[in-house]
Structures are given as structure tokens and as C-alpha cells.
């Protein structure tokens, strides 16, 4: 060690300042977020359906993810500026108050609820032709957001279940009745359940100025595995967010019905899914189109809900295709509902 230090110290001492400056550029986070092209994740790797005979599709369904870095480093800012595929924006909205860990937690929470929404939509659709398909539902109310000024902020976990609250007129279990059973400026005890199933209590004050507790709840439905046939397994994955809902539902549906819905095609797309099968808008259209293009997908499904809305995902995708010289003909498929996407695939010829 000493010999090498003696040998290289003259050079090292001159490089020390630039070296530390480079590390500063590589590590120091700035309040900007960046969206960059990501990749495809085959839904096979996200949800496994345990059918009696394991079905093998000739093609594949993939969700499309983009890279979103809430607080990028100076170096990423510099590199991102030179890339035509990235979008850089100043961090704003709720994300400004959240730590990167909290943003990731919310993304995973979104992902989990979107997988269950996809299962519900797919199982409902498959039941029409296949009565053996069954599923039960559990209604849950999850913590989807916290505001910076709320009391005992760190004690409430994102994505934990709201169980009840000790209100003015007794115990409240319906989250919609929380407001009517509480008084501004007073403190109330909330009961939550964490992901391990343990309940915990947190005292939260209703802000006298805003007349709010600072919590955002979301009512969601999860599939009850004990009442579901065929059963399924969610495979842990690093990708978060709700934008894979449509493609997840299509893959699960393809597993449950007879025939091969993929027709041997590499199918990708994006779009959230609602319990009624309607498709919702997503962000990062430019990055998703570039990702799909680089991955040579055969079909790309994208939400198309309003032809008069300039930021409609499909219209935005057409502009991206024009900007980068990509021909969208026969490749970019606009859909508003899950059923439209299924109808499109069923209308295709080829192997089934």
C-alpha cells in the first residue's frame, strides 16, 4: 500500500479536487425529475396464473416502463440534456414533499392495486365463456398520500390500510365519514394496519386552517385468493406504477380463455385499467413509444379517450412518431376499453 501511495501520490494530489468535484456531480441530488426510455416487462414475469394445464402463448404481452428519477444528480441532468428522448422538469406537486423512498412506495402501491384491478377485469371477462373462473373481492382503504404538515407524519405508512378512527360520535370505519365525525383543531386516534397485518394507532390533529388531517385515502379492491380459481401468484418486480394495467389484464385474460390471443405477436402497450374495464391515461408517452420502438414490438396499445384533447395519449404518441420518423401504421393501436383491445386481437388472423 505504502509503496503505491509513494509512487502515485504526486499525481493523486493534483487530481484530488477534480476527483471530488466529479463525485459531487455524480451524487448530489437536485430538485429535478427526469423521464427516460425504459424497457419492456413480460407480464409472465409479473403475474403467474395457475391454470390446470400450464398454458404457453406463442406470442407475449409486455408492459412498458420508463425510467423516472425524482431527484436526479447533476451528472444525470447534464447527460439528460443531451438526449432527445428524455424530459426534464422541475420537481413539483406532491412529489416535491416526498422523499425518493416514499415516491417509490407509492409507485409500488399503485402497481399492486393495478395488478389486482387487471385480475378483476380479466376474470370478469373470462367468466362469460368459462364459468369455472371464479373470484372474490376484498375492499380495502389504503393510505395513498400524506401532506408535509400533518401530525405524526412518520408514524403513518404509505399503502397501509385504514382500519378505523375514534370520532366525535364513536368509532368510524367508513373513511368517507371521517370528515363529518371530527372537529377542526382536535386530535383523533386513527387505527391502521401495515403490510405485515399488525394494527397500530396514530394520533392525528385535524388542521384548524385547512380543516383536513393531511391524509389521502383510496378505496381499492383486492382479489381474495381463497375465493379465486384459478389461483395466481404475484411475482415481485422492481417496476412500479399503474400504467401496466391494460396489458396485465390482456395477458391474464389470454391465460384464462381457449385459443391463443397473441397470434404469435410481441404485444406491448400502456394504460391504466379501471374495475369496469375502461382504460386511463398515463405519463411518459414519448419515452414509452421510443422504448417500444427500440424493442421491436409488433403491436402497441395506447389510451385514446378524447380526440379533442391535445394531450390525449394517442395524439401525443402520433406527434412523437412524427418527431422521430416512426411509422405508426398498423403498429400503434388506440383503445378506450379493455374490450376494444381484446376485440382488436380477436379480429386479427394468424394462429389461434
Amino acid at each position: 500500500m505504502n509503496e503505491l501511495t509513494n509512487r502515485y501520490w504526486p499525481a493523486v494530489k493534483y487530481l484530488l479536487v477534480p476527483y471530488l468535484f466529479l463525485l459531487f456531480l455524480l451524487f448530489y441530488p437536485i430538485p429535478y425529475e427526469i423521464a427516460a426510455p425504459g424497457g419492456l416487462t413480460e407480464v409472465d414475469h409479473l403475474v403467474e396464473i395457475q391454470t390446470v394445464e400450464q398454458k404457453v402463448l406463442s406470442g407475449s404481452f409486455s408492459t412498458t416502463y420508463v425510467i423516472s428519477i425524482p431527484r436526479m444528480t447533476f451528472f444525470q441532468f447534464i447527460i439528460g440534456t443531451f438526449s432527445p428522448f428524455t424530459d426534464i422538469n422541475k420537481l413539483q406537486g406532491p412529489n416535491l414533499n416526498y422523499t425518493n423512498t416514499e415516491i417509490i412506495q407509492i409507485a409500488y402501491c399503485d402497481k399492486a392495486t393495478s395488478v389486482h384491478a387487471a385480475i378483476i377485469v380479466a376474470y370478469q371477462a373470462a367468466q362469460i365463456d368459462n364459468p369455472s373462473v371464479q373470484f372474490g373481492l376484498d375492499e380495502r382503504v389504503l393510505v395513498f398520500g400524506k401532506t408535509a404538515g400533518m401530525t405524526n407524519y412518520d408514524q403513518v405508512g404509505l399503502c397501509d390500510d385504514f382500519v378505523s378512527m375514534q370520532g366525535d360520535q364513536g368509532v368510524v370505519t367508513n373513511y368517507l365519514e371521517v370528515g363529518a365525525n371530527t372537529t377542526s383543531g382536535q386530535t383523533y386516534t386513527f387505527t391502521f394496519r401495515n403490510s405485515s397485518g399488525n394494527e397500530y394507532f396514530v394520533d392525528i390533529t385535524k388542521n384548524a386552517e385547512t380543516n383536513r388531517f393531511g391524509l389521502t385515502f383510496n378505496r381499492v379492491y383486492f382479489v381474495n385468493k381463497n375465493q379465486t380459481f384459478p389461483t395466481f401468484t404475484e411475482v415481485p418486480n422492481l417496476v412500479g406504477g399503474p400504467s401496466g394495467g391494460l396489458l396485465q389484464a390482456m395477458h391474464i385474460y389470454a391465460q384464462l380463455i381457449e385459443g391463443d390471443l397473441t397470434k404469435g405477436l410481441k404485444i406491448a402497450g400502456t394504460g391504466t385499467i379501471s374495475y369496469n374495464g375502461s382504460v386511463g391515461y398515463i405519463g411518459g408517452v414519448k419515452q414509452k413509444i421510443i422504448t417500444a420502438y427500440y424493442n421491436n414490438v409488433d403491436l402497441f396499445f395506447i389510451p385514446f379517450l378524447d380526440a379533442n384533447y391535445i394531450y390525449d395519449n394517442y395524439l401525443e404518441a402520433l406527434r412523437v412518431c412524427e418527431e422521430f420518423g416512426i411509422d405508426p401504421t398498423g403498429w400503434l393501436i388506440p383503445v378506450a376499453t379493455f374490450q376494444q383491445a381484446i376485440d382488436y386481437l380477436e379480429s386479427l388472423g394468424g394462429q389461434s
Partner: protein
Amino acid sequence: MREYIQKIKRLKHEFGLVGILSALFGGFVFSTLLFLPILLILGSITTLYMHILGIMSSMIWLTFFLYVFVFFRLVKQAFLLKNPQSTVDYPYLFKVHVIITEIIVFILGVIYFVVLMPRIF
């Protein structure tokens, strides 16, 4: 194998365990100082170019090959600086260690490309 063990024994005899560990530690520190920013730069670029993840991963893989080579090169230099009149067969030991470690890096890379990359991303 016998030749290798004999040469390692010769190395231990000349420098002792502390001397060998000191050379290895020096090689590790200086090669890491050199390659840490390179790997961090490549990692940062990769996060923004995930659509060409295969190419970026290959570059990181190649950097690891180079890192191993430089590490053993620095270890060898440390021994030579400790004792310029040493009779240890450094070229032989350097070659054997580099080849074995590069094979391990190669196998780890193949596992990443074939198993981990498709599952994680």
C-alpha cells in the same frame, strides 16, 4: 498446479502474509479509485439509456474486466516496488490470477445477461 503452489510459497517466503495483504489492499484501493468514477458514470448513463440496456451493460462488463486487469497489475507493481530484486515469477502469477478472476467475471456477466437481466428489467 504444483508449479503455481511453489511460486505462491516463494512469494509468501519473500514478503510474508502482511506484505502480500498490503500489496493486495494497495492494488484494491488504487484500482477502485480509478474505476469507481468510471463505473458510476456508466451507471448514471445507463439509468437514462435503459432502452439500450444490453449495450450499456456490456460496457460495464468490459470495464470490470479492465478493473480486474488493472488491480492485478497494481498488485504486481506493489511487489516490485517493495523489493526490486525479488526472484518471484511475477509474470506467471499475474497471468494465472488475471485469467482465473476474468473467468469468474465472465461467468457472473453471463449469469447477469441470461438470468438476472430478463427477470429484473
